[in-house]
């Protein structure tokens, strides 16, 4: 599974990739290789982390066409959208990305991760809200594995806050999946009727 996390520097994009990769490889018995796109820019520039998760050791470390794209900035969304494979999964922060040229061949899910984090007191948790959302929607790593990956990856005094952020994103994702299921069910019933 080829995944790209994207946004701008300072949002914790690389950390998102690290958390999922660490969860998959240390606590979920998979192989996970993460690489980062380093540019000369620091904070503010487009930034992305590439993660390959596999049942077998990963040979080729980079990603050409991701199956999942996470975008937390407009610039990153526009830069990387075309690379997403048909039927791929697109996750966006709905306050930061206005999805024009919507691709009909991909499954898009959105969450106000930055706003949810701000409501918790600090937008710095937005990436972990997104990680929770990612975990629920994609079902690639176990939620417990991601929670186990938090210690050592975030400052110890903020672990509880990070777990809270993760849970909010995760629950939001589960609710969306439920709603989609219900909608599909109703649609099906309607057509059958």
């Amino acid at each position: 599974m080829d995944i790209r996390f994207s946004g701008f520097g300072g949002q914790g994009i690389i950390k998102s990739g690290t958390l999922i990769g660490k969860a998959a490889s240390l606590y979920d018995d998979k192989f996970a290789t993460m690489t980062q796109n380093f540019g000369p820019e620091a904070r503010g520039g487009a930034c992305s982390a590439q993660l390959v998760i596999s049942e077998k050791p990963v040979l080729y470390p980079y990603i050409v066409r991701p199956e999942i794209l996470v975008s937390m900035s407009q610039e990153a969304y526009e830069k990387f959208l075309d690379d997403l494979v048909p039927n791929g999964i697109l996750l966006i922060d709905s306050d930061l990305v206005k999805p024009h040229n919507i691709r009909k061949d991909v499954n898009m899910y959105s969450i106000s991760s930055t706003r949810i984090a701000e409501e918790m007191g600090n937008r710095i948790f937005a990436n972990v809200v997104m990680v929770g959302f990612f975990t629920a929607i994609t079902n690639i790593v176990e939620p417990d594995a991601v929670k186990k990956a938090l210690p050592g990856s975030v400052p110890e005094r903020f672990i509880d806050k990070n777990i809270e952020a993760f849970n909010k994103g995760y629950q939001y994702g589960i609710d969306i999946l439920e709603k989609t299921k219900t909608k599909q069910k109703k649609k099906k019933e309607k057509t059958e009727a």
Partner: protein
Amino acid sequence: MKADPMGVATGSHYLDGDHACAEGAIAGGCRFMAGYPITPSTEVAERIAERFPKIGGMFIQMEDELASMAAVSGAVWAGAKSMTVTSGPGFSLMMENIGLAVMMEVPCVVVNVQRGGPSTGLPTLTAQADMMQARWGSHGDYEIIALSPNSPQECFDLTITAFNLSEKWRVPVLFMMDECVGHMTEKVIIPNADEIEVTPRKYYKGKKESYRPYRFNGSNSVAPMVKAGDGYFIHITGLTHDERGYPVINAEAQEKNVKHLVNKILKNEEKIRIIEEDQVDGADVVVISYGISSRVAMNAVEAARKKGLKVGTLRLVTVWPFPESRIRELAKSVKAFVVPEINMGQISLEVERCAQGNAKTILVPHAGGWVHDPTDILNAIEESIV
């Protein structure tokens, strides 16, 4: 000897190659590092700088790379296992003092996280174009040991090996990473200290007046060392010297001194050698690679095997000294060698030389900035057999 448990971060980690290299150095007994930050190697220095104060090590950020390499040699003679870390431009600046360390037979490790060149080139992107500089970068005749890891786990494991080899042969060991491996994050398992084998420095224990800092006796061994402050009066120099370390400026002394530097590595090449072979028996073509290219090449090799081609692989974990005798032997049984490397042709020329016309050598070059497209390697494999 087993590793000092104080420095060993036992457990499962999710680390990039740079950080894993730093942990490997600590586990391998390194307690002094001098360096000057340069992308993409800075994370090694950062982690060492953070970890050393807690375990009794010393990190100094020097004014430049010349001073860094000089400080490393000084620290070794003061008794510390020492390392420096850099990338291409800094590696160039270190060359003179790497030569000095070779001449003074200083066991130390120099890490080069390779990026695209020449000059400042591609600071943040990968290359494997310093392989010949590792071999010949400093002036004069000498032999060196160079290792090339292909994963963060190996950045940990092989940094320990690099320290062990440097102590065994009293030689600078060049740890030739590439940006891709340095900035790649994967699972790294750090074992218990009592499972990590560490080669201690051999110190002299005899009479003070009979100590010789060098031994030029057929090159199967090197002389034990002493520490500054232990009361020995010794002379260490970059000039051609005798076993006492005193300068002797004539052809006879040069013959003894240089032959020793060369032969202690070349005559023991098979003892130093670390290579990984897979399915080379009966193979029509063998892919020879190192560093990140060895992983990318496996993609192509698996595809070629699915097509029914008989493809073997040989991975150079130690790139220098070069496994000449093994390549020569293989050349007699295979039709071709395919050599993918992220440069315009360096190790492929060594392969070609060793093949002695018995097998074709096909280079798959890449100028740097990215890894190979596995299709290019697959095409070369297919063409090589036609």
